[in-house]
């Protein structure tokens, strides 16, 4: 249908599809995305047309305050409110639907994708302010940029200059786009359904009751989460890229085999790339980047990492997680000044650096996944205690799936699946498709686990 429509009307279909997609979960939360859209549309026009620098700053502040305000109310306010019995909120919802819905949202359900689309629209108004882009004159087309359904709920966070020209262009149907879209989505579903969903029960066991398990089991649970979140989020990003590519739209790569990074800095160039570049461009660089004094630079780094940690959720453990990454980043940078690392290190040293970074990232995930610092510290203690208590049993099928995933991650180092598989002849290509399809249909996890990043 998309390709049959004249290009000037495609935005209507995309907008309708995107709003239907978002509203299908909870129609009342559509009002938030419409609010963000209308707010930033008009403020960007004002910023662009205003000659007065103070007025432009005020309009920009209004945009930032409006978007962060919505984010604060629906995501972070609960941190400062007392705990509420879910049933009492249900009672409130029955007596007053509007207030009940708001109470329910504040306490129990964050509007899906709110952290993503608010940041996406903020980047737009900030870019208009700095005159990097001209504002979009067409409200409908701007609304499509904000709500484009493949990347609406969990990114990648796109920039206006990258996405909008594609949304406006008269993209023709391309067979190779469709082919690559299928490949990306297939591999994405394999990562999410076969790897992430099968690892989640293992990590849940350990994180829900850390006191029960010994060192080996605890470490297994922690590693299981590390791969779960990677497969979950990278899988979603690939599915989003595939869905967009089917419409002729290229979204940015969000993951580039991050667990093969040699240091924390490289990790953040490979993990959730759209978020890390957002914080680099809209927080780190405006704070001065690395063009300030050393002490100020270190504070900037810690600030950016802790805020990006906090972006993930309304819990102090996310702050700690971000802070850990900031501290590790600084430690490595200062460490390199004391002991410079040779760029042509031998394979053993490279491998050690990869392993070191991997283990540090996994230990940091403990704070990301645990909902309390007490549980996080219990898990850390369990890992290093050396005791053998309750053990975990893992099904052979899960181990086999993980082995397939591990090998594919090695093979796909710095490659994308759709481009990598393209070089093979059709019998091998289709054999790989068949294996992935069979794994998805026969071995996908069956517990109730939504995409992890949907909660952000």
């Amino acid at each position, binding site marked *: 249908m998309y390709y049959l429509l004249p290009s000037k009307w495609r935005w209507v279909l995309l907008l309708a599809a995107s709003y239907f997609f978002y509203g299908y979960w909870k129609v009342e939360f559509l009002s938030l995305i419409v609010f963000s859209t209308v707010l930033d549309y008009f403020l960007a026009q004002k910023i662009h047309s205003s000659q007065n620098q103070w007025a432009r700053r005020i309009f920009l502040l209004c945009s930032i305050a409006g978007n962060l305000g919505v984010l604060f109310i629906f995501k972070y306010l609960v941190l400062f409110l007392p705990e509420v019995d*879910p049933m009492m909120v*249900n009672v409130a919802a*029955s007596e007053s639907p509007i207030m009940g819905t708001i109470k329910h949202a504040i306490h129990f359900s964050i509007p899906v994708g709110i952290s993503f689309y608010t940041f996406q629209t903020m980047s737009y108004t900030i870019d208009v302010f700095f005159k990097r882009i001209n504002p979009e004159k067409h409200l409908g087309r701007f609304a499509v940029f904000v709500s484009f359904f493949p990347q609406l709920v969990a990114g990648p966070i796109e920039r206006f200059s990258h996405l909008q020209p594609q949304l406006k262009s008269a993209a023709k*149907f391309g067979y190779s786009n469709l082919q690559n879209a299928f490949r990306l989505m297939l591999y994405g579903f394999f990562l999410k359904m076969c790897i992430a969903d099968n690892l989640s029960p293992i990590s849940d066991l350990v994180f829900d009751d850390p006191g029960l398990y010994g060192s080996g089991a605890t470490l297994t649970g922690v590693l299981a989460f590390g791969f779960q979140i990677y497969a979950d989020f990278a899988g979603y990003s690939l599915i989003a890229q595939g869905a967009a590519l089917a419409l002729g739209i290229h979204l940015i790569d969000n993951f580039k085999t991050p667990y093969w990074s040699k240091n924390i800095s490289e990790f953040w160039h490979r993990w959730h790339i759209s978020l890390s570049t957002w914080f680099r461009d809209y927080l780190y660089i405006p704070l001065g980047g690395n063009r300030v004094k050393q002490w100020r630079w270190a504070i900037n780094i810690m600030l950016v990492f802790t805020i990006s940690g906090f972006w993930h959720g309304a819990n102090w453990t996310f702050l700690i997680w971000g802070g850990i990454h900031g501290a590790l980043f600084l430690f490595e940078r200062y460490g390199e000044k004391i002991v410079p690392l040779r760029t042509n290190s031998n394979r053993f040293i490279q491998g050690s650096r990869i392993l070191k970074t991997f283990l540090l990232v996994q230990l940091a995930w403990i704070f990301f996944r645990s909902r309390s610092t007490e549980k996080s510290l219990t898990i850390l203690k369990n890992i290093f205690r050396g005791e053998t208590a309750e053990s975990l049993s893992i099904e052979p099928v899960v181990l086999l799936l993980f082995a397939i995933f591990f090998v594919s991650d090695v093979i796909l180092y710095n490659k994308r699946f759709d481009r990598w598989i393209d070089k093979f002849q059709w019998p091998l290509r289709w054999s790989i498709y*068949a294996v992935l*399809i069979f794994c998805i249909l026969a071995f*996908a*996890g*069956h517990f*109730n686990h939504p995409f992890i990043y949907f909660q952000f």
Partner: protein
Amino acid sequence: MSVRKQATIKIVIRLAALALILLVCNWTYTRYFWKSDLDKHAEMLLELLEIQDTSDVLYFGESSNFSYNPEKDSLQDRISDFISYHYPDLNFGTINSSAYHMGIYLPLVKQITSERVKTIIVTLNLRTFDQAAIHSELESALQKKACMYEPRPPLVNRALMSLKLYDHTPAIERSRKMWEEWTYDTLKSDSFSFPAPTIKRWCELTKFPDSNGVENIEKRQLADHYIKAYAFIIDEENPRLKDMDALAKVAHDKGINLVFNLLAENTEYADSLVGPNLVHLMRQNANFLIRRFRDPKVMVVNNLELVPGWDYTDQKWTTEHYSQYGRQIIAKNVAEQMQIFLGAEYFVAQDIK
């Protein structure tokens, strides 16, 4: 050939290849992995497949069938066993699992393919029609099993289960709906006059003050529980009734006799706690079911008031768990009424103890 035509041909070929892959995947899964998945997620289907070819009668039951009183019972035989003693020349197979209801039996019955099965007995209790049962927090887990029980290609069931294409409403949402229905749904009937307009109000009106006016909390809680369990009128919108209709149709299409075993409830205790209104309502609902399912090949066996109050293993709460006597008289009643279908095979079994 135009580019569009070339692309169309490519797509058609690839879709055909995909269809072939799916067929091979389904065959591979069914051959090598299906049984272990059934064992993990849908054990009753595995049991049905194993016993149907050697059974003349299949009994679908839940905990009422196999619960017994360890202090009083000399026999721990199940209701289905006691029924089978009345038909010694017929093989009885039993599918038993706690908390199952009509909606879960339905896909299992659809899976009966054996020509040998001529009659099925399906247990039901009145409580299965109430809000607590319909919105039970167990329902999501049961619907997951029902997804695997459906008569579809096994790989399709496995995939649908992974994609959670079944009713997996969260427990909090279910309890919200239950609370709303108790609070706001109006109790109304042309044939019955309710003491209060809603269940919540009926519970509030039911009080147990002692001589000093102090409320007996335990009795009050039990009375609330009984009202919530039985205060409803079964109507066409009730999902359990729809399941019963669907089950009757499936049995009819397969040429199988269908017996609904309406289990006994502790009406004596209900009367003492809440009063004759509630018991009258229970009888009315039972009679509705008996009238509705009266067909040459379908019947409802009414055991509602058959078991005396002292026989229940749980003397207070609403469970359909009976001691030996209760299980035997229910079985005798079902067996006697089944003569309509299996008359020639009937045998008067030993006296009830």
